[in-house]
């Protein structure tokens, strides 16, 4: 009991320290002047709640007969039989949802889907192959600039640029991976971090090609079989989407179209990765992550296998970048700073390394929640950091730890 009291006091103190700046200081506006008013009682209430909860945590959980959240869900076997049905329903809902939601919400969801793509791509490298990559944003940038430059200089459409962008990002991954993958752990992380910065600085300073810090604007939006989503067609002899179908012009169509496109790309990514991890190459990634020496003794070539993970992961980053450029219509190096790499990595860690569903949930959480809580924007990084620390203490395996696709041997 004294141990519990000590723990509860400590938790309450931590809560107090965190809560004072967030809850304890209110910003009030009177006319044109803004003043800070200290209202410490909220912070004390919060700390008190934490204290009481921590004190009663153990008695409460024994009282409730250890009903953990996990036990409330149906057992794994029953989940497995319902799985296809649940997935189908979720996918159908994801397709119907934008037609019922507001334009702003659909727009945020599209951004979230980009992060899902990035998270899934990085998950190959970090989650499956166990290679810590802190410069993943570089491949995202390569994809985005590929489309922007290909359309500016060669007038290529989004649909042609998408595979090229993914391919170029893969090529960059391959070229970087070749010398770098001999390194392990921390060393690899530092080199990839440097690579991410090199790409950003290159884009920032190569004025003639990339426009430097001014970026590239007027990037055309994707088209649906050649139909544009603009008020009037830009290309000669083209008719915009709304005229073709005899509809009133509305910007919403474009937003919904972009959302659906992102959704399709995410589904494509999911499909490919789900196949990959059941294929020999996916098994080899995991084996290498588990024990490189044992893998070598069985004839697996570590360099090739790591390189395949790095290259494939990069290609999905490139794909996401391409789509990002098309959605934004304007890109500059500011969008590809280290913090993006950190966020994508946080998505992977938060979701549970190697877990697809976990990564999707984490990506949605980390992009949608900040949008919902815009008024707390200044505290975003604070909360973000706090969540990561708490996760590492209580759930280091992530929200939904991976349950590998098991190759079952019938017994």
């Amino acid at each position, binding site marked *: 009991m004294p141990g519990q009291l000590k723990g509860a006091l400590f938790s309450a103190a931590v809560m107090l320290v965190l809560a004072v700046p967030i809850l304890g200081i209110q910003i009030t506006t009177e006319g044109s002047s803004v003043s800070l008013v200290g209202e410490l009682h909220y912070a004390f209430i919060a700390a008190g709640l934490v204290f009481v909860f921590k004190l009663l945590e153990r008695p409460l959980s024994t009282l409730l007969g250890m009903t953990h959240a996990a036990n409330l869900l149906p057992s794994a076997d029953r989940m497995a039989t319902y799985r296809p049905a649940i997935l189908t329903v979720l996918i159908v809902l994801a397709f119907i949802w934008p037609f019922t939601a507001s334009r702003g919400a659909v727009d945020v969801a599209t951004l979230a889907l980009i992060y899902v793509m990035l998270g899934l791509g990085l998950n190959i490298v970090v989650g499956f192959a166990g290679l810590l990559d802190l410069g993943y944003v570089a491949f995202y940038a390569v994809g985005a600039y590929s489309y922007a430059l290909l359309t500016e200089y060669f007038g290529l459409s989004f649909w042609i640029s998408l595979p090229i962008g993914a391919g170029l990002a893969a090529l960059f991954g391959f070229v970087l991976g070749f010398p770098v993958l001999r390194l392990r752990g921390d060393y690899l992380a530092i080199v990839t971090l440097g690579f991410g910065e090199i790409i950003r600085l290159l884009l920032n300073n190569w004025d003639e090609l990339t426009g430097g810090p001014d970026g590239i604007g007027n990037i055309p939006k994707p088209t649906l079989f050649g139909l544009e989503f603009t008020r009037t067609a830009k290309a000669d002899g083209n008719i915009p989407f709304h005229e073709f179908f005899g509809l009133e012009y509305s910007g919403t169509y474009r937003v919904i179209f972009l959302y659906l496109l992102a959704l399709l790309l995410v589904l494509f990514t999911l499909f490919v990765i789900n196949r990959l991890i059941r294929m020999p190459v996916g098994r080899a990634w995991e084996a290498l992550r588990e024990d490189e020496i*044992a893998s070598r003794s069985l004839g697996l070539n570590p360099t090739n296998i790591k390189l395949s993970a790095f290259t494939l992961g990069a290609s999905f980053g490139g794909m996401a970048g391409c789509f990002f450029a098309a959605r934004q219509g304007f890109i500059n190096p500011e969008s590809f700073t280290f913090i993006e790499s950190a966020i994508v990595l946080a998505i992977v860690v938060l979701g549970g390394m190697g877990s697809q569903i976990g990564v999707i949930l984490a990506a949605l959480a980390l992009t949608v929640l900040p949008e919902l809580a815009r008024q707390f924007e200044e505290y975003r990084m604070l909360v973000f950091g706090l969540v990561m620390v708490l996760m590492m203490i209580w759930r280091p395996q992530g929200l939904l730890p991976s349950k590998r696709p098991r*190759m079952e041997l019938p017994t």
Partner: protein
Amino acid sequence: MSALLSVRDLGMRFGGLLAVDGVSFDVNSGQVVSIIGPNGAGKTTVFNCISGFYRPTSGQVSLLGKTISGLPGHKVARHGLVRTFQNVRLFRTMTVVENLLVAQHSRVDTNLLTGMLKTRAYRAKEAAAMERAGFWLDQVGLREVANREAGNLAYGQQRRLEIARCMVTGPRLVMLDEPAAGLNPNETRELDELILLLRAEHDVSVLLIEHDMKLVMEISDHIVVIDQGRPLAEGTAAEIRNNPDVIKAYLGES
């Protein structure tokens, strides 16, 4: 008849330390050869040199007449020479059967496109790999735990799984580094039978490092004794048992 594995004048130097010096021996096909010697004699270093984990500083290792010394570990393995480790090295979070599937990496279809499309040839190779895995699980008596995580197995089972994982690669020679370490007498006896079964029915030769003298003397066709990196004696079990140098090295001067 030329030897399956021939080691000639092997030497390995770490800075100023000569860990292995002038070790030579042969393993003929169908033989069980043991390397014995006091702790720190350089037995595992010899293993590491042969299996490509170290690049020997001198000497030559050849398998079926082809030189393999200096090749990286994964290439040596593809020549049909696989090994286990002193401390068990399984892929612990993967299931038992997945461990055996990974080991067949160089025998299955690793093409990304055919795998993505699940072509008929791809599926056939995967099915064959699964069947081989099942066969070896039966051989080492682990079929009932096939879909469990390898890290959760009992120690003796993990040892057996490691041997099975070597065998699914279809090797010519398996090198076992202290396979009986940590096993109880019962398990050691089972291991003894397993090694003899490998030789009798699966046409592999075995190179063994072992401290359990009873096991060594029972199953070895040939024994190589190493002391302080140098070859001390070589011969059949009976010859080694009565060799005064060996007795001296093991028991000290009397």
